[in-house]
Each structure stands twice: as C-alpha cells, then as structure tokens.
C-alpha cells in the first residue's frame, strides 16, 4: 500500500480499538484529507469522530490539547508544517507544560500530524521541514516516517502514547508503495531507531526523505554503510546510534533542512562527546544549503541532498578521512 494509505490504516485501527480517538483538521472529513490521509474515515466513524475544521489552526490545535486533557485522544492534522506557526504556542508553551505544571496530574495524549518537506514544487512557504521548531521543547515527542511500514507503526504508537506527539510526514513520500504489516506486530516504539541497512564501513543517521536518498546513495557508491532511520527525533535513540558508531568509527548525518540549527548537530555533538577517542574520522553532516527551498524545478531538485551528492561525499570521506565540502562549495557556487 501507499504511505498515505498506511496512515489511514493506522488511524483506522486505532479508532476501531479505542473509541476516544478522534481526528480533526482542514478538509480531513468529507474530502478525506488534502493528501488523502484520512480517506474513508468519515464514512466508517461518522462526523462526531472525524471533523472538518475552519482555517483556524490555533483554535483546533489548542482544542486538541484541551480535548486530550479532558479524556479524548485527538489526532490533529496540520496540512503543511508551516501552518503550525500560528498554533505553536498551544504546543510548545501549552501542551508541553501541562504535566510539568500539574505535578503529573494532567496528561495530553495528543497527536499532531504535519506534512513536511521539499520536492513538490510548492515554493518557499510550503516546503520546509521545520522540525527544529519543535525538537528543542522537552515534553514534546517528535517523530517522523519514511516508509509505509514506519508510517503505520509510528502513527499507531503516537496515538497510543500518553503524551503530546508530533508526527512529521514527508509529503513527497505519500505516494510511495511498500508492504505494511497491520496489527500489533506492525506497531513501532517511539524513541527507538531502526537499522534500515546494516553495514560496517560507516554509520549514516537519516530520517524521513533522507532515509530513501541515503539508501540509494549506499547502493550507488557500493559503500558498506549502516543506515539508521532515526524515526524519533525527540527524544532520539542514543543507544542505537552510539552502538553503531562504536562499531564503525564514522558518523554521517543526512538532513533535509538547512545546515544552520539542524537536528544533526545534536547527534554529532553527542557522538563526539561519547566516542571521541574511538572515532576514525570527524563526524559530519550532509544537509541542504542555508537557503529557502527554491521554486524552480531544477533548483529545488538540488535542495534535498541527492543520492549522487551523498555518494560523492561518502566516497571522499572514506578515501581521505576528512570532511568533504558540500556541492555548492565544491562547485564554486556559494562559499558557505
């Protein structure tokens, strides 16, 4: 099934097993979701549990917080991650502080789903990943998906989780097909990374779209890299990452967002701190440039690190034990 159908399946299975699960968002009910991620749910569960909202992100995200506190398990859809901007307060300053400020009496079993990322020609205000808006708030779990199976498994885990969880869905992957194991055995654990490809030459940590591009790069380059699909960004799985890098001695993080302030810095810093003396070379990050996502098709195609670019950097890294320059520096296009 397609990734978007795996999301529908996960929501459907959770709604069947728990009557307190309900969903709301813009055009999620009658239209089945702008990206068809709730197709058929209105028909099966009715308008009390599947609700279209006005264009009022602050109100319906905040309502998700309140409804969660009062006993429901809302799943709120934010059509494009950018639209969370007007509702961020409800999550960062609201949802994430409820348990803390009530001495553990108030929980917020809320899921906020948002589509993210570049590659669809939507321009600079509809193509960012923006995970760093939410990853630095203790109390907010931030997860992402990369395949139909991880979409199914993470979504179900997120709905079951007793705390506020944000699930970032790479928009460009909605149509990707893959096998999905439904039911209990298909559910993943939040906070646990997956080894998407075992290997010994180096460790790649990726998430979302970069899992796909990293696997393709490994294929292209013939390098025996281990590819870790991080899945949960906050709190992230240190154990799996550290164990892998302890074996390979090399770490490369592949990110879709601009270099500045990216989540990979966190990984590199932690690995350096824990494993400094056993590293074979400096850990580094392959990221998008420090630029907005351009509209022009050819320019946009260069934004997300492409398999060929990742392969080039990995090959150079292994050959020289030093950190390669990104394409824009290597090609003399931009200096940093």
């Amino acid at each position, binding site marked *: 099934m397609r990734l978007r159908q795996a999301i529908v399946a996960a929501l459907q299975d959770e709604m069947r097993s728990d009557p307190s699960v309900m969903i709301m968002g*813009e*055009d999620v009910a*009658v*239209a089945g979701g*702008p990206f068809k991620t709730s197709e058929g749910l209105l028909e099966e569960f009715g308008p009390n549990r599947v609700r*279209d*909202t*006005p*264009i*009022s*992100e*602050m*109100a319906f995200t905040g309502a998700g917080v309140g409804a969660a506190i009062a006993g429901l398990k809302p799943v709120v859809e934010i059509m494009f991650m*950018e*639209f969370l*901007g*007007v509702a961020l307060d409800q999550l960062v300053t609201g949802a994430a502080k409820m348990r803390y400020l009530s001495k553990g009496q108030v929980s917020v079993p809320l899921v906020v789903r948002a589509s993210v990322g570049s590659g*669809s*020609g*939507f*321009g*600079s*205000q*509809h193509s960012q990943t923006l995970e760093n808006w939410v990853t630095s708030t203790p109390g907010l779990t931030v997860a992402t998906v990369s395949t139909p199976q991880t979409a199914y498994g993470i979504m179900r885990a997120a709905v079951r989780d007793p705390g506020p969880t944000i699930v970032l869905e790479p928009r460009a992957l909605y149509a990707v097909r893959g096998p999905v194991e439904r039911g209990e055995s298909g559910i993943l654990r939040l906070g646990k990374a997956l080894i998407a490809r075992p290997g010994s030459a180096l460790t790649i940590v990726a998430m979302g779209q970069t899992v796909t591009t990293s696997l393709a790069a490994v294929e292209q380059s013939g390098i025996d890299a281990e590819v870790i699909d991080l899945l949960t960004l906050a709190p992230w799985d240190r154990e799996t990452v550290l164990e892998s890098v302890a074996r390979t001695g090399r770490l490369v993080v592949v990110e879709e967002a601009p270099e500045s302030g990216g989540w990979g810095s966190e990984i590199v810093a932690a690995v350096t701190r824990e494993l400094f003396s056993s590293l074979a070379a400096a850990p580094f990050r392959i990221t998008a*440039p*420090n*630029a*907005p996502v*351009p*509209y*022009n*098709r*050819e*320019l946009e195609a*260069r*934004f997300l690190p492409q398999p060929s670019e990742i392969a080039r950097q990995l090959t150079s890294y292994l050959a020289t034990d030093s950190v390669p320059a990104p394409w*824009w520096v290597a*090609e003399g*296009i*931009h200096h*940093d």
Partner: protein
Amino acid sequence: MTEATLATSASSVERRADLRAGAVQRFERIVEIRGFEERLNVLFASGAIHGTTHLALGQEALAVGLATELEPTDLVTGTYRGHALALALGMSPRAVLSEIMGKAEAPTGGLGGSMHLCDMAIGLLPTFAIVGAGLPVSVGAGLAFQYRQERHVSVALFGDGSTNIGAFHESMNLAAIWKLPVVFVCDNNVYGEYSRINLTTPIEDLHLRAASYAMPSAVVDGMDVPAVRTAVAEAVERARSGGGPTFIEAKTYRFAGHSRADTAPYRPAGELEHWQQRDPVLLARRALEAEGILDAAAIADLESRVGAALDETIETVRELPEPALATMFDNIWTPGEGAAR
C-alpha cells in the same frame, strides 16, 4: 475596430494607468485575466508547469475594479490565489507566467512560483501563501503611512475562509483602534479549499464581522467592475482622509476548483451554473454592448486579439532560460553588519 491595445512591452505602471482610460481597457484586462487562467490550466494539466496553482476564474472583476481605484504607491498584500490581482494591478502576462514557470527573468528570478507574485513598482508585496498572513503586514504598512502622515492606502485582499483565522481578527481590531488607512477586501468566493462557507463559518455575510470592530463596511457584487470601484473608491477616500479602515466584502464565486487537482465534486448541483450567469466577462461584455461602446463584432475582435497575444507570450516564456543554480543563494540575507556575506 477596437482601440489599440497597450504594447506588450508596457510597464506595469503604464498597465495600471491604462485601467483608468476607460471601460474598454478594463474589459480588455478582464478578458486577459480570463484567458491567462484558462491557458494556465491547460499548461498545468499538460505537465508543462510543476507544483500547484490556484486559479482566480470568476474573480477577475474584483481584481480589476480594485486595481482601478488604487495608486501604484499604495501597498497591497494578496494571497496564493494571486494571478488576477497581479495582472490587474499591472504585472504583465509575461512577468506572471515567467514566475509561474520559474524562469530566470521572473520577478523573483525563478525562486517564487505561482503563489508568490511581486512587483514593487505597483505596490504589490510578494503574495502570501499562508492564510491570513498578509493582513497584519497590511496593518503595519498602514501604520507607517499614518505615522508619516502620507496619503497612501494599505490594502489586504484575502478570502472568505481567511476570516476564521486569528490574524484576521487581530488585524481588524488593531487597524480599528489605531484608525489606520487600511482597506480590508474580502473575496467571498463561497469556498475555502473543499469546504463550502456554511460548513466552516456561522454566517455567510462576512461584512457583518466588521461591526464587532466598529469598522465601516460595504458589501458589493464582486462580479461587477463598477460596483467594486464605487465601494473601493469610498473606502480609499476614507483611508486617505484619516477616516480609518474599511472592510469590503465582495460576493464572487470560485469557478475553478481550489487548486490544480481539484475538480470540485463537492459543489451543490446547479450552483456553478447559477453563478455563471453572473460571469464577470459576460457582465462586462453586456455592459459595453448595452452602452453602445462596442458591438459584438468589436468585442469578438478584441477577445481574439488578447487571446493571440497570450498565446504568443506563452510560446516566448516557454523558451526563456532557466535560472542559474547560484540564484538560490540570492537575496537571503539583508546586506548589513550582521550579515557578513
């Protein structure tokens, strides 16, 4: 014969001024916008353009009526559904299409796309892709005009669905208490994405919302250029003379789906056909004939001339060069001490 068309090389300021030359010129602009949007639909469907697009079919008269009453020095914020606004304000079909096709000569150099049209010579700020985002910015521009005691007007054009977002209410309130020279123009085209207004909004007459901010309001037939002009002229005059903001609700109808892939299966039967009787092109054509300004033959001549010019523009723009890769690093940082770039 009809009057001569503006040369395709006319500047956006000249194209704006042309709207005041007469009803024929305004009709021609409406025909141009209609033809532009229809051709764009075909280009998207054929895969010649990527990404998404939001057509303003049915909203041509509002754009043209509004643009006629504004000066190029007034500042306008619009939305992702911006082609009609941009063409009406004066951007050329070539400029708008090159933006949509991401060409190097586009106003943004190919970085913006369909949702982000900009021409500062005519006061069009880069259009906003986030619902409601333009309104606070329009309030701020109004603040600057009032602060410096200038007679410019700040205009925000947005949809019916946008009146449900916080930014709308906060902006209306702020403009009202500070009596800022802002004109809020709500294009009530009955739909916000795939939802009919009655499903998301407790009232359909959105001008009523202005009352809670003690703001003067007007409701106009947005399919009719003269009606739009009258309402805008009054609001603009109020703003320029220190009378504060106005809210205008223009009743229009979205003839196309929300965006590229949407065929609007959710429309009630007969609704589209009902509104098509008030098609702005039809109304404008009828008015010209009724007033004896142009006869049917002259109108047909004008329409085919405008269509041919558009076809030529499309051929030209298709062949324009793509931007260089380095363009993606342009204009990110503002030159200054903080940005050693």
